[in-house]
């Protein structure tokens, strides 16, 4: 049995959860296994997870899990893994998985590959490719234990949708109060925007924009295609933008389909967080900026002139697509 942890909040699943099920379904096809999706916390309408390749859904419908406390989530997943005799467990490698997947792996004495970017190669044992050295290389990691845990990088595997549905069953867990030792006091989430880690389109600004008052043109550019904003480290350090937008070696690592870098020089520590992006566009007024070497498309010139023109061109294309 292949178990997939599918994260949801208020009954809403993110694309990354569907990617993880599709990934599991592909492995199941080559091994003849079944796919079981695990859902933690209050939710409904779970039979639709079958659309992505799960035959079964096991649901722990317990409101205490809504906040995704790692210790309790790990306990629930391990309990289901034991009941289902799972030999492969898949996560999508986001902040929740980084707290939960290693706990599950340690509890089940299962080898873990965190940040997988490919399907396992079953021809020579069980080998999974992952990104290492902050995007500067890949490693092929063999998992030697009986149970295997893979945490899949978001945006690395495509969603496959069908019309199949899954059967849903409930599972209850005997939690201890110590499983919920971490109390959430307050939460401050950006509303209505795809989180950076999952965004397919990203518009990012650097020190070349001169100050926070100039971010309006980037917001318009991002708005024209529904992109999420990011920034370089000095921009976050100077409090021009919030910390969670900072990408690079010490910030977030992302791999969107499109990364538009505006007024960013392309230092190696910045590239470490973004160089797995499928397509990179660089707008910079310095022809010697190192970022051009890592770019697919480059525009040389003043961002304050170029960005509004690009926004207009995107809007024009969107309008013609609708018309």
């Amino acid at each position, binding site marked *: 049995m292949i178990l997939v942890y599918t994260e949801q909040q208020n009954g809403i699943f993110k694309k990354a959860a569907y990617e993880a099920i599709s990934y599991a379904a592909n492995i199941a096809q080559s091994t003849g296994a079944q796919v079981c999706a695990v859902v933690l916390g209050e939710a409904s309408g779970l039979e639709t997870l079958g659309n992505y390749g799960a035959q079964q859904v096991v649901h722990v419908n317990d409101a205490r899990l809504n906040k995704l406390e*790692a210790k309790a989530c*790990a306990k629930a997943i391990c309990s289901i893994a034991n009941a289902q005799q799972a030999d492969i467990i898949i996560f999508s490698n986001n*902040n929740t998985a*980084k707290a939960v*997947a*290693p*706990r599950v*792996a*340690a*509890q089940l*004495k299962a*080898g*873990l590959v965190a*940040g997988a970017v490919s399907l396992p190669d079953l021809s020579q044992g069980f*080998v999974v490719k*992952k990104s*290492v050295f902050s*995007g*500067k*290389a*890949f*490693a*092929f990691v*063999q*998992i*030697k*234990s009986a149970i295997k845990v893979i945490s899949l990088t978001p945006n690395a595997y495509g969603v496959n949708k069908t019309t199949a549905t899954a059967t849903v069953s409930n599972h209850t867990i005997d939690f201890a109060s*110590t499983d919920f*030792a*971490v*109390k*959430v*006091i*307050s*939460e401050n*989430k*950006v509303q209505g*925007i795809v989180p*950076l*880690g999952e965004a397919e389109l990203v518009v990012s600004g650097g020190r070349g924009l001169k100050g926070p008052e100039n971010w309006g043109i980037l917001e318009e550019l991002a708005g024209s*295609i529904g992109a999420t904003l990011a920034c370089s480290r000095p921009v976050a350090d100077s409090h021009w933008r919030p*910390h*969670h937008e900072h990408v690079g070696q*010490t910030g977030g690592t992302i791999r969107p*389909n*499109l990364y538009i870098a505006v007024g960013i020089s392309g230092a*190696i520590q910045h590239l470490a967080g973004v160089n797995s992006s*499928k*397509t990179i*566009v660089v707008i910079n007024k310095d022809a010697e900026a190192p970022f051009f*070497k890592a*770019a*697919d*498309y480059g*525009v*040389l010139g003043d961002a304050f002139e*170029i960005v509004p*023109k690009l926004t207009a*061109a995107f809007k*024009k294309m969107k309008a013609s697509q609708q018309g």
Partner: protein
Amino acid sequence: MKILVCITKAPDTTTKIAFSDNNTKLNDAGVQWIINPYDEWYALVRALELKEAGIASDIHLITVGKADTEPVIRKALALGGDEAIRIDADSNDSFYVASQIADYVKSNAYELILTGKESIDYNNASIGAMVAELLDLPYITHVCKLDIEAGVAHVNREIEGGEESNTCPLPLVISCQKGMSEARIPNMRGIMAARTKPLKVVPPSNADSLTEIIAYETPLQKQGVKMIDPDQMDELVRLLHEEAKVI
């Protein structure tokens, strides 16, 4: 309150990564080893700040690594900390490394265990959570602010698309990232003091390695950038749509 800070070595962030032995080993010729930045700037420095504020009594550093990690652990001691522990073993698999740290803690109690957000070489972001599981402790990831009051940790942490405030009673494992503290530079006094601070070498306990890296690959080089005239943004959009197929 005793704090244990988990320290690993990592290649300097500007290092060009290359491999040898038919792409099975990191080519470490010319690699400058540093303290993993998250371990140094955030975990270690915050621990030192807590000691200076009179909240922590002892700061111990632990690393799982062979003798070649000693210069890096001495560098960490030069920043501060009372003693270092080196578990004398290779650090190739997360479960193995976490088991070593957990086994050490089982016979040496700590109220707070700090790790970095991730190691910048293997990027697993796994050790802290595994240590917590093996010790049956709570774990909070991506912490950007940490205070301790009356045996309770008050933290801010990064979550998907935002921030959250949490409290949790000690003992606890925390992974540390940007925001926790201001970077420090070791001074001459620290460097001198580090020479005489205890660095205990401890033999490894029995634990299994569950994974193994069998080969490496460097990413394909970009084809070369296509430059677009600033007055031709419609053309750029067309290329993104038709050639790159990303919008």
